[in-house]
């Protein structure tokens, strides 16, 4: 056998700044193609479902195939509203960051369907373990259940102002709302994945009926916690949805730095013996249906499901990022699965339940609502105009009770040391 000299494969995206966008690497099957398996189907039935892309809405906005969810137009309109509101929120808060009123912000533009639809599917009492790109969970929860953090609360957190329920402790967007079923976001990537599995194990141990759902980015699947979570989920079969948001980018690294082209993130799950779906994340109906399927599966004690959402991070990674440095400008416009808001709007118009006029009005309304809220929120201060938190507030909640050594540090501060 002739020897090829060894060399390292260093994957590169198809295109870089200056190139025309090229998404030929994303194989897009027609909508309605895939079977919907039984909740207790053997893992072998998921070989194909974890490799293709489950789609419901076709390019014309018509629903197709077995995965069509049973969902009322009202529900869909609520979903549309929550997506539009999330986008308006993102845009406004990024502006506020640009104005220097806070330190940092992150948007989920283009990925709104995922958190909004899944928030609608899960129930009060369930627990999400999100990343920083699921603001839609909180916004939807407020809209449909009115529990937990409001959009106003989120704004105050972003501003670190006197209305911030986290007392200015966390970086903007690191929300936490137990009442909304929204677990405290960590800055350390991946850790929430294992915790969600633990939370779901606890629910099972207590013979409860609550389920957990957690999110991770394509890039972050490389973290150790991804593996720990899948291993424990594989072994103990807890009621958890393990979402992988494959938005094609991890800051400047494309998804090929986390996985090779011969597989998918969902296919990883099958390797662990866990049913796994790969789904069009920009198709509200597909997200709703797959989430509902996984939630039902979990609630019926059939165990975990992995769902890879194929989507695209339309905006920069964060307020600190300039994506034009590493990917073609306007790449998001070429994303072949479109925009989730546009696609649900088209579907509703096709159903005769919505019109472009209504849509324009909705966008205007949400923009104004967010604008008004953000003005209110700024009245409670911002990072440039810090609330007068007593220094000792820093020491609260380090422990349940302030131990002697922290008391002494407070005294040092009080003594003017």
């Amino acid at each position, binding site marked *: 056998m002739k020897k090829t000299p060894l060399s390292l494969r260093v994957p590169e995206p198809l295109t870089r700044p200056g190139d025309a966008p090229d998404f030929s690497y994303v194989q897009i099957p027609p909508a309605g193609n895939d079977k919907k398996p039984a909740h207790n189907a053997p893992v072998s039935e998921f070989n194909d479902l974890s490799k293709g892309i489950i789609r419901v809405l076709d390019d014309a906005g018509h629903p197709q195939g077995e995965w069509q969810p049973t969902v009322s137009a009202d529900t869909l309109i609520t979903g549309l509203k929550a997506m539009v509101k999330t986008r308006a929120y993102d845009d406004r808060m990024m502006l506020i960051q640009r104005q220097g009123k806070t330190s940092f912000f992150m948007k989920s533009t283009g990925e709104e369907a995922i958190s909004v639809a899944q928030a609608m599917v899960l129930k009060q009492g369930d627990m999400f373990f999100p990343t920083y790109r699921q603001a839609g969970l909180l916004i939807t929860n407020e809209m449909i259940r009115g529990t937990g953090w409001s959009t106003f609360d989120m704004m105050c957190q972003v501003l670190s102002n006197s209305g911030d329920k986290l007392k200015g*402790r966390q970086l903007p967007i690191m929300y936490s709302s137990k009442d909304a079923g929204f*677990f405290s976001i960590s800055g350390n990537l991946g850790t929430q994945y294992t915790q969600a599995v633990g939370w779901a194990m*606890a629910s099972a141990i*207590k013979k409860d009926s609550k389920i957990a759902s957690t999110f991770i980015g394509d890039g972050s699947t490389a973290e150790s916690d991804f593996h*720990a*979570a899948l291993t424990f989920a594989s072994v103990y079969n807890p009621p958890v949805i393990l979402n992988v948001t494959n938005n094609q980018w991890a800051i400047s690294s494309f998804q090929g730095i986390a996985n090779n082209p011969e597989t998918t993130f969902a296919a990883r799950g099958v390797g662990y013996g866990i049913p796994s779906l790969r789904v069009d994340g920009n198709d509200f109906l597909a997200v709703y249906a797959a989430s509902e399927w996984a939630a039902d599966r979990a609630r019926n004690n059939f165990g975990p499901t992995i769902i890879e959402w194929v989507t695209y991070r339309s905006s920069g990674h964060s307020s600190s990022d300039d994506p034009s440095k590493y990917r073609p400008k306007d790449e998001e416009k070429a994303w072949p699965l479109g925009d989730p808001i546009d696609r649900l709007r088209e579907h509703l118009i096709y159903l005769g339940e919505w019109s472009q006029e209504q849509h324009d009005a909705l966008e205007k309304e949400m923009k104004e609502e967010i604008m008004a809220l953000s003005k209110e929120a700024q009245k409670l201060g911002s990072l440039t105009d810090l609330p007068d938190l007593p220094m000792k507030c820093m020491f*609260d*909640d380090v422990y349940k009770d302030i131990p002697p050594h922290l008391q002494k540090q407070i005294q040092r501060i009080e003594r003017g040391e």
Partner: protein
Amino acid sequence: MATMNMIQAINSAHHNAMETNEDIVVFGEDVGYFGGVFRCTEGLQNRFGKQRVFDSPISECGIIGTAVGMAAYGLRPVVEIQFADYCYPGYDQLVSEAARLRHRSAGDFTAPLTVRMPTGGGIFGGQTHSQSPEALLTHVCGLKTVIPSNPYDAKGLLLAAIEDDDPVVFLEPKRIYNGPFEGYHDRPLTPWSKHPDGEVPETHYTIPLGKAKISRAGKDVTILAYGNMVHVALEAVKVSGIDAEVIDLRTLLPLDIDTIVASVEKTGRCIIVHEATLTSGYGAELSAQVQENCFYSLETPIQRITGWDAPYPHSQEWDYFPGPARVARALVRAMEA
């Protein structure tokens, strides 16, 4: 009252805790059917069922990470890391998650979990079954770190740790599981059954976290020690004939500085003993605090008698180990200087 070694005392604490609180779950590598490689969880699965006591995959990351999630749900997980040397793959979940959750969520979520880890050497375990990582834990605000020196304290402190609403790391000096160890590896070990602290109630009791114990009152030098080094220190007092006060810290964080200061103000001399490597060990913190609080009382320099800055060696274990002769010599120096 029964006679128990430290393993039995720890086991008994689990029994008492689990009987009264259904939210306590116990898991870790080999802790289920087998009852743990040191047998601390023996019989628990049989008694409390597999839903509450089970084996885990070999992933310290997964053990601590799932425990954080369970604690956030409302359970009280008590997990075992097979050896403290193996806590590092789970260190991120401990430091960045368990320790920070209450603060970062402003009390919205909490992580009341207990992480048990056999610690320390003296068992010819080589470098990866012998380390004492307490300094890597005490630097982490949000964590509490506890280390008992005898069965009575082990049970009372473990029950307090389990009932504590903050995450607690519970270090178990494995060299003294079966008996107090004065540091003579070539002499037979006296079992706990011959030691007063081997008398352990079968019923529930707690020893408050954050309170040290004076193991031996004395007036000439203060020795700060914890875990197995308490027994080495007591032996060093005998060997040297110097009337030292031996303080068993029991909880490293939060530290009972008041008991320490009262003693050092009395004696004017202080020696710190631990088995972990010297540099940036917990002895450094103790030394700094004693110096800060007792500067004007100190007659001679505070000394740290510790393991050397080398990986815990296998065959040279007793060259590494800070035994009673070394501590005794330090006592003499403390009086001379």
